């Protein structure tokens, strides 16, 4: 495998780009592995990578029913930040952000992580107070935060709707400078390539259709490419978690599948340097500009449970209204595409990285619509769990039994209704 370097890019530029090889092998599945990860999104691929790199495991497969990154990994709005506040979440997302900061070097693959800053607009004195509290929490726990007044905000982002008669006048912003965006496909490909180099088999077009059990253990998986055995099995299938759970005969989960849409406009010249978030009185909207120039944005879920990867029209209207209320200059820009992904919404809005009722099955799920930023961290902690057969203390409370203990990890304080979390 050719290493990416300035010299190799230059050399291949002179030789018609003919000197590059495949980025990962296309292998036939073996009959048995030490670890089988189901799901070839960021989380599954990152898990395999850290299992091989950090824990030295050799015989690992990632099974993906379609193509890697064809699920939510390739459908999200790519916002990366660490401003979560619940104990456990705080440390987890900070760890993940630190991994992002060195990811391109670690993987020898440019994931285009751009720390352009995450700017949450504030519209009421109450919101300013809450932001101050968040600021203190972040600063006291080794992260970064800023509060911008109106003057500073106007300098940084001059074309927001600052009209005094706006329905929700802007008072300032809570900012995390180290937050930003990344190129979603590149992250998937980067992890796949790096894992493959360490000997991980990445097996695409391989759908898990059944789970074979002997009492409290999984003995193998029936897939569209034959039976595959694994000493340890990890599920990392985002919106399809309940289906795999059902195949394993494990009953119910504190998870519902809901769909979230994302939108992109025609490309524009550079307009917006940051990620901007607008959330007030029932609206929820986030927007950034991709490197190609398209305005990438999204809002709330489609509001009803669904496994269909297609979005509905009322949300198109909602997000368009939000876009125009904070960035009226977008009024005549055309929408290019919108699409949706199936999200594993949990009962308290937080994730599960945990052991399961079966001895050799491990679960990584419940990412709601915030699991892109979590990808490196989830891979890191899930690999740690699988290799050591015990959760790291940072994810120790993120198990399936926390509701039984009365321990909800509810960032939004929205209660046990999956569609209300984010």
């Amino acid at each position, binding site marked *: 495998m050719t290493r990416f370097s300035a010299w190799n890019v230059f050399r291949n530029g002179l030789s018609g780009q003919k000197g590059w090889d495949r980025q990962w092998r296309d292998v036939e599945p073996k009959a048995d592995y030490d670890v089988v990860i189901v799901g070839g999104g960021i989380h599954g691929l990152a898990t395999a990578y850290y299992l091989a790199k950090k824990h030295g495991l050799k015989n690992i497969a990632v099974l993906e029913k379609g193509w890697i990154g064809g699920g939510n990994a390739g459908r999200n709005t790519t916002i990366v930040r660490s401003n979560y506040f619940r104990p456990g979440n705080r440390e987890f997302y900070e760890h993940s952000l630190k991994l992002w900061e060195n990811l391109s070097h670690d993987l020898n693959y440019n994931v285009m992580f751009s720390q352009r800053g995450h700017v949450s607009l504030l519209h009421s004195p109450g919101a300013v107070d809450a932001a101050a509290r968040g600021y203190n929490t972040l600063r006291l726990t080794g992260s970064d935060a800023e509060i911008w007044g109106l003057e500073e905000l106007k300098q940084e982002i001059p074309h927001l709707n600052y009209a005094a008669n706006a329905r929700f006048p802007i008072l300032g912003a809570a900012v995390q400078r180290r937050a930003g965006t990344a190129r979603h496909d590149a992250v998937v490909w980067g992890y796949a390539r790096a894992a493959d180099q360490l000997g991980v088999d990445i097996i695409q077009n391989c759908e898990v259709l059944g789970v074979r059990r002997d009492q409290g253990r999984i003995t193998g998986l029936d897939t569209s490419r034959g039976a595959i055995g694994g000493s340890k099995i990890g599920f990392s299938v985002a919106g399809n978690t*309940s*289906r795999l759970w059902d195949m394993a005969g494990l*009953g*119910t*989960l*504190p*998870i*519902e*599948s809901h769909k979230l849409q994302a939108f992109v406009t025609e490309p524009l010249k550079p307009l917006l340097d940051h990620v901007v978030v607008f959330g007030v009185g029932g609206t929820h909207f986030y927007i950034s500009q991709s490197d190609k120039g398209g305005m990438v944005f999204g809002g709330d879920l489609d*509001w*009803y*449970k*669904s*496994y*269909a990867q297609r979005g*509905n*029209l*009322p949300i198109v209207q909602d997000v368009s209204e939000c876009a125009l209320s904070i960035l009226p200059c977008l009024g005549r820009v055309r929408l290019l595409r919108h699409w949706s992904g199936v999200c594993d919404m949990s*009962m308290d809005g937080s994730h599960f990285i945990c052991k399961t009722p079966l001895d050799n099955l491990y679960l990584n799920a419940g990412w709601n619509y915030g699991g892109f930023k979590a990808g490196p961290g989830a891979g890191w902690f899930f690999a740690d769990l699988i290799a050591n057969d015990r959760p790291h203390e940072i994810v120790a409370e993120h198990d399936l039994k926390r*509701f*039984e203990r009365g321990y909800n990890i509810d960032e939004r304080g929205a209660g*046990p*209704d*999956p*569609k209300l979390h984010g």
Partner: protein
Amino acid sequence: MIRINCPYCGERDHSEFTYGGDGSVKYPALDASMEDWLQAVFQRENIRGVQTESWHHVNGCRMWLLVERDTMTHEIHSVRVAHPGLQQALEDPS
């Protein structure tokens, strides 16, 4: 747009309704065990296929409905009024 045939108002866009959630969940008696309450409040089947769910016709007659809907295709198989007495009255007005 999903269209829901409200027994009182006729067929309307789903944007007139709010989504309740899994309509098959039955709350246990107040003094039921913790395990029963855990199941009702936190645990879900999360069916891919036809499930019963509750919808509130909030911008219409304001009635709660029970809808059988396919979570993969969004096809609706049946709509009835959630309150059993009212549903019975609709079916048998005598």
